């Protein structure tokens, strides 16, 4: 009989105990991406050249807007609160155009991601482009992957010191040029560059250069893949953007596994052998330091360099390219099912090949048709709708506006003849870079008269006001109405402004107040 006071000790180890606990801080393991060539690499060079050219050259483009506006094609004139973009000029109250563009950029990112995966991350994101640029410098100075690993592990010799100092010096120079280019978007570039080098530019210019130099150097040179993995929110969001029909960089283990470095031996032993020869080329080229063969992962920015690496190896081995390729999850799953006989066994490459060499024609391939699906249609529609709305608004927007502020203290003044006078601050907005003469008239207030301090009103009761190009003109207009015409405590009427030359006009409905009892 068992003694009931004795208990049997269960088999258990503390999951979280000092002896097993991992440190919260994981030191960064350095990544030494190997240089690779191929179609995607060539495409990335092209994208890099285009994006860098856009960034560095845009402020230097000129655009003639006449004598009253700056001739810089793209200029954010913070001092005068104007934004110039080629033929478009935006005033602060039209900032919704920028907001609209940001909405379009957001939806566009959804659209691109749902069709071709993280193309933004892999090709055009500034972080990717600048890291790529910094890696060019690194390779040029310290050599390719193996040389860099050796140099990094070696002791500090004079050579290592020289290489490291020159690498960081060039990085800093690039970073300074990056910060330097940014400020030219905010002032006339040709004159600002002289001022910058003469030391006479505004302090904010130097501060901006300094901050952007520091961030570029730190993010592009020192932190690199950590920015994408730990700092950027997009890798988290993209999970919701991707679906089973989105193209993404995929290791096709249905034809790669079981991987083997000794394919002939394994074949001789009668074991199944996949196409992957476990050469690790895909791992060596990865700027994120991951192994794509582990499957879809948050760190992968889909730069596709592993595709180039693997295709090169496949070419040498005389096998079909595309062991690593852009594929959708649904295609991958279908092929995987074929290779495992519906999950019945582990991957057996012979199941996807007809007679041991050519691929079975039952394999799923990506088809352009799959781009057009409800999700992308919704994104495309939303994107186009915002774009068309912005375009319509841009093409039909007013370049002449009137805003009216009704005096509230006092609301009205009784004049000696008993008539009632109201005061208005009228703002005329001439939103084109040319001087204009604006005619102000009043409609809908019986027998009322306008007056402006210091201006003699012409007989036709219309007021001609010259307004400077691209400026706002403020007028204090008094409106008075004879007592016998006043029929309500508040009457509405219109201020109408018109440019007689262009027939542009605008109206503002204002209120005319009177005391309860006149007379």
């Amino acid at each position: 009989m068992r003694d009931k006071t004795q208990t049997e000790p269960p088999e258990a180890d503390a999951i979280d105990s000092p002896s097993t606990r991992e440190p919260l801080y994981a030191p960064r393991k350095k990544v030494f991406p190997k240089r690779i060539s191929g179609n995607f690499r060539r495409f990335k060079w092209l994208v890099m050249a285009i994006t860098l050219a856009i960034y560095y050259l845009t402020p230097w483009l000129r655009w003639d807007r006449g004598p009253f506006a700056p001739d810089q094609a793209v200029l954010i004139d913070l001092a005068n609160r104007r934004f110039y973009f080629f033929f478009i000029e935006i005033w602060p109250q039209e900032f919704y155009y920028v907001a609209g563009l940001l909405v379009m950029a957001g939806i566009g990112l959804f659209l691109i991601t749902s069709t071709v995966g993280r193309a933004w991350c892999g090709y055009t994101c500034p972080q990717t482009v600048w890291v790529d640029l910094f890696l060019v410098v690194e390779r040029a100075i310290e050599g390719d992957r193996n040389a860099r690993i050796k140099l990094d592990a070696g002791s500090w010799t004079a050579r290592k010191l020289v290489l490291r100092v020159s690498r960081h010096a060039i990085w800093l120079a690039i970073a300074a040029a990056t910060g330097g280019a940014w400020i030219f978007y905010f002032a006339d570039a040709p004159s600002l560059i002289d001022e910058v080098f003469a030391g006479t530019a505004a302090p904010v210019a130097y501060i901006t250069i300094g901050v952007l130099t520091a961030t570029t150097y730190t993010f592009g040179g020192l932190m690199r893949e950590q920015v994408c993995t730990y700092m950027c929110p997009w890798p988290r969001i993209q999970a919701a953007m991707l679906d089973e029909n989105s193209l993404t960089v995929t290791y096709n283990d249905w034809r790669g596994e079981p991987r083997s470095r000794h394919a002939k031996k394994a074949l001789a032993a009668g074991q199944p052998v996949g196409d992957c020869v476990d050469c690790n080329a895909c791992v060596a080229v990865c700027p994120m330091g991951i192994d794509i063969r582990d499957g879809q992962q948050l760190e992968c920015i889909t730069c596709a360099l592993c595709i180039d690496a693997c295709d090169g190896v496949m070419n040498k081995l005389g096998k079909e390219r595309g062991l690593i390729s852009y594929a959708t999850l649904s295609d991958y799953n279908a092929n995987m099912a074929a290779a495992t006989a519906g999950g019945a066994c582990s991957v057996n490459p012979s199941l996807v090949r007809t007679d041991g060499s050519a691929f079975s024609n039952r394999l799923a391939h990506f088809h352009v048709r799959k781009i057009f699906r409800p999700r992308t249609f919704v994104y495309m529609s939303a994107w186009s709708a915002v774009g068309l709305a912005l375009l319509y608004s841009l093409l039909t927007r007013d370049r002449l506006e009137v805003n009216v502020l009704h005096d509230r203290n006092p609301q009205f003044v009784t004049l000696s003849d008993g008539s009632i006078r109201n005061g208005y601050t009228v703002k005329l907005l001439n939103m084109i870079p040319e001087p204009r003469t604006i005619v102000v008239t009043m409609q809908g207030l019986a027998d009322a008269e306008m007056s402006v301090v210091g201006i003699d009103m012409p007989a036709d009761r219309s007021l001609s006001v010259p307004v400077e190009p691209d400026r706002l003109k403020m007028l204090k207009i008094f409106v008075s109405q004879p007592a016998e015409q006043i029929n309500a405590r508040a009457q509405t009427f219109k201020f109408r402004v018109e440019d007689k030359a262009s027939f542009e006009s605008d109206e503002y409905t204002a209120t005319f107040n009177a005391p309860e009892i006149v007379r």
Partner: protein
Amino acid sequence: MSGEHIDEVSDVSTTGHEWDGIKELNNPLPRWWVITFYVTIVWAIGYTIAYPAWTMLSSATRGVLVYSSRHDVKNELEAAEVAKGKYVAALQAKTVFEIAADDVLRGFAIAAGGAAFKVNCVQCHGSGAQGSKGFPNLNDDDWLWGGKAEQIQQTITHGIRFASDSDTRLSEMPAFGDIITPEQIRQVSAYVSSLSGAVGDQALVIPGANVFAENCAACHGDNAKGNTELGAPDLTDAIWLYGAGETAIAAQVRAPKQGVMPAWGGRLGEVKVKELAVYVHSLGGGE
């Protein structure tokens, strides 16, 4: 001191302090934190040397940079004065009429005068210069002592019925309650009220006209249009400083109220008064 104590539960060394079996762990601070802490100490020492910091008997150490926020304010005020200098000089040299005719100077004077008005004038005339009973509305076109810019300037400079200023303008309406009969007061009130359109008792209006001609026309004029030389109001218009209607008029005839405005010339200086005059003139009623 004995050797290091290691807490058995957490495997962390302790400070050796223990209360009822609870030991104080000695987790080291993160290195970046410690470094930052020492840097702030160094910074603080440097700061107290560079800037005013240590309390002394009567003041504090001035610091090697000899910084003073009061000095900063003084410099900024001086800079602002210098920036305004050319406008102030022009205002000094020109008459209010010339100032009002010049776009730039008028804009400057209106801005400066508006600010001065908010400080000095709103107590009586109201924040919108709309006045109230007994305090004239400065927006309208009815002026007791004249609505030209020069006249406004004179009114502001010397005040009205302000005993301390020898150049002040004065006038006094007699208390007619002691001079004419209550019946005559009713008659003249009805007459005056009828001048601006209000229909009075017609039976009183005709004799009221006679009372007016005998007693009031001397100052208010034969046609009751008033006289800005004497500060006598226009009785034919729609604006009534002490209220419209026969009752209010009768009260004013019987025992008149007389407003007093202080002289501002000595207190504000010539330029400020000019700015105020241009501002008031611009409110819409200036002549």
